[in-house]
């Protein structure tokens, strides 16, 4: 089981792609799913590589990402 769990909520995403650039381990990548406002939302590609640095959660301007440390609960 993955050490940390990354949840992306696409409902409020505006597709700024900060999370993709911010992740040091390339856990998050692009997808072809669109949010309610028509923006391309990111997706979790490789959750096993997550080191729990929280940068994606803290740098998401629209609070769409939640990192659960210590495994999926």
């Amino acid at each position, binding site marked *: 089981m993955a050490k940390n769990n990354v949840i992306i909520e696409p409902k409020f995403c*505006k597709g700024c792609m900060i999370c993709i*650039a911010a992740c040091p381990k390339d856990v998050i990548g692009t997808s072809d799913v669109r949010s309610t406002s028509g923006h391309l939302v990111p997706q979790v590609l490789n959750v096993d590589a997550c080191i729990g640095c929280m940068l994606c959660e803290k740098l998401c*301007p629209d609070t769409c990402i939640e990192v659960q440390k210590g495994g999926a609960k």
Partner: protein
Amino acid sequence: MPNMIREKYVRPYAQKYIFCPGCGHGIVQQAFARTIDRMGIKEDVGLVSGIGCSSYIPVFSNFDAIHSIHGRALAVATGLKLARPDKKVVVFTGDGDCTAIGGNHLIHAARRNIDLTVVMLNNNIYGMTGGQAAPTTPLGSTTKTSPHGNIEPTFDVAKLIIAAGATKVSRWTVAQPNQLEKAIEAAINHKGFSFVEVYSPCPVQAGRNILGDSNPWNMMQMYKDQGKVVKTLENFDYSEGKMPHGDFYHVTDRVDYSTALQNMKEKL
């Protein structure tokens, strides 16, 4: 599962921020909410703001808030602090609101050393009204009101208010959220006028007109690379063309305005 910070600290009608895609103001709002969550003082905080993009932060946050008139956020906050000295008053203001329209309120609040925390979100431009040149717009930048390049030098707001008498000054960018949270926490705990300047990207106006790159991440890195993190402003070398970033000014030798007023009341 929803993000707990949003559930707890963002008002229900503002769950989808009105900020443009890539705007850094949401990051600052989150950093502030996390700080308050960690400190556990949600009920003891009052937020005041003026007019502008950044001044929407208190309106959308689930705190007691006053959305006051343009540039007068610090005047309103002064009154609030003097009426309720037991509460922590935090002012969210933008660069135009703080240094242009409310410039005198800023320097006089700093001179009185009143116990406020001012978070100034600096995006180098008047973003909401369409990209006019602000006092913080860099020299030579092309904006809507300076199509051939800005001929006005920019304000160094940190130096201005240190000269005016502020007692705690920090400067960070939104690319450093952990340091920003610590700076806001230290500013709230500090007794006296504390000022946190945050560089926040405005991809729509500043990105297009000033920095020449509308990618929010690239803008954040540009703001980060503009600065050099220092612990003190003494002997800072401006000739490298970099700005001092960090928690660089902190003095405790001045008495704050609320305490001085209380001392005067007891004396009379």
